[in-house]
């Protein structure tokens, strides 16, 4: 089994709660730049990109914190 994180861009509101929860959980501080998930806001266009950085386990912390269920933790069978 090898889990990965699916992102439903249509549901994401750009709130960054996922990144804050990640940095708080792993580093005990709030600092979105330390998080393993990065939310890039394209403010003028009202859109977002979410990037998973090296180091992400994934652990479900961000999924659990997401208020819109935009992050979906997917379990996949190893090939």
């Amino acid at each position: 089994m090898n889990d990965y994180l699916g992102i439903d861009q249509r549901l994401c509101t750009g709130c960054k709660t996922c990144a804050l929860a990640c940095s708080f959980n792993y580093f005990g501080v709030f600092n979105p730049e330390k998080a393993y998930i990065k939310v890039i806001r394209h403010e003028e266009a009202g859109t977002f990109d979410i990037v998973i950085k090296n180091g992400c386990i994934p652990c479900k912390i961000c999924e659990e914190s997401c208020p819109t269920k935009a992050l979906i933790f997917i379990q996949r069978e190893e090939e």
Partner: protein
Amino acid sequence: MHGYCGKILTIDLSNSKISECEMISKDGTDFLGGFGMNTKILLDEMEPSIDALSEKNVLTFGVGPLVGTFAPTANRTEISAKSPLTGLMGTSNSGYSWGPELKYAGYDNIVIKGKAEKPVYIFINNENVRIIDAMNLWGKNSWETIREIKAQLGQKEASVACIGVGGENLVRFASIENGFYGAWGRTGLGAVMGSKNLKAVVVKGNRDLTVAEPEKFQEAVSEMRSSITNHPTFKPWSTFGSMVAVDVNYDLGAVTGYDQSELVGEDFIKNLGRKNLLKYKKRSLACTACPLACSPWVEIDEGPYKGLKIKGIEITSTMDFGARLGFRNLPAIAKATEYFQKFGIDCSTAAASIGFATKLFEENIIDKSDTEGLELKWGDESLVFELMRKIAYREGFGDLLAEGPVRIAKKIGRGSEEYLTQTRGLETNIRDPRVRWDVWTFGALINPRGGDHLRVQASVENYKTPCPEGEYIYEPGLPKKVVDKVDILDEWKEKIFDFEKNTTSIPYMAASAQDHLNVVNSLGICIRPPVAWSLGPKIFSKLMSALIGIEYSPEDIRKAGERISNASRLFNARAGEKREDLKFAPKYYNSSVNDRKLDKNKIDEVVSKYCEAREWDPNTALPSHEKLKSLGLEKYANPKG
């Protein structure tokens, strides 16, 4: 220091001096942050009687202790200075990303003094703070400014607070734009920036924000989150955003139109009610850490404004351009939003200036010889857009409109002041006090920034029963089981609610609601109903104790709110506002709408009762020396108090 960065950054633009000082922890505990700290800083750093557009004015950006954490909606920044519009405390609150970014850069407050010789902007990148030439940005609208600054600095993700041409031209109600689509809109703070030759304040940071007791903080945040998401207003607000309240206020019979001359009719709600939003809303957008995501991203795909894509059709702009000016379609309100954001002018006072002029034109008090030949009429979209441009550039007739309604009336005379809708210098919008008398509408008389509706709102109110005509002290009461759920301290519940008589005391609830919203605006969370109405001193004490590591009781929190109410009243008293100034615009006492007008004497009694609730002298509306001492404010005593 946990929660706080513990640092205040001071920039004197007259001599380019940049300095840092430590925030004394007692100031944090006493004034919390955000609005509270701003109030303290203004009292410490300036004389409230100065000319707001002089270099003596102090502009302060305050970010609360919760900001930057994942506490829901902890993203707000309060900006304060003396207002060039009202002459009272100018203050405005906005969210999105600027506040968290300042915390990650390492500061709780920025204090800006003096005046730059030439246009500049400030870039705060952690502890590297620079004052940068902005000659090439002067004259640019706010959207161009943001794009250029980001490109110039190579900082796509920096947060930008800037002025448009409105602020440069000292429009008395110029706003400070918060990124592309938000603003510190009210009370003319953009003109204060313009008067300092300051085009923008840009922030980017990547420092850690620490918490004293992480596990306890996590618990308190979970409790806070579930209070918000379980509040009955949560679902409708996340679907419709603030537009949900257009229907609520219409159903209350509280909305008047055409510069508050008559009740709005069915065409208003049919065309501008919340359901219409869903035709254009494509998705929901959130400020940092917000589960509510109240902002709609709208795309207009039909009609004259086809192709417009923008964040936000809101209740305020709908009331300003729809009710006050007579627009009857949401795409036109979206278009107005683009204009006021790009120009950097406050939508409410811009619409009020245009509305006042239109009313005077209708009443034949002014004519084409006053308006450069323009024929002012209700609902004329392109005329309104053209007038907004003229205001921003202070061009022709726009130069007069840029002064705001109160000064327009002074200039014109001819009895025009009878038509003003400005109470204490600021328009009272959304609810007309003549047709809906309650805590909200009374709040116009005590709000620290003048007669608007955003600083005194009860966390619970009876929407079902109309307020009886002629009753001023009480509004219809609420069942005990409803009140039991509200986080207000028991001692205050006893003063506010009478379950036998089924009443809510307006003056006592107003004092309590004002203190509560002071706390909300000082901790740095949002005043949207699902947030502000579901929280109170009990949960705030848990959050703050865990965050800072200093024990805060619920009473400490309530008292901080009270301290801030007292401090802001002292500021306004020192700026010259007297007890007798706590009154509505004459129109509300003299001309009826739906056969109702206000009773001046009875309202005066409510003000006296409010003073009683605050333990203030009812003749001066000022705290006694003992009161000030009990709040630790004695050094700010009014010279006459």
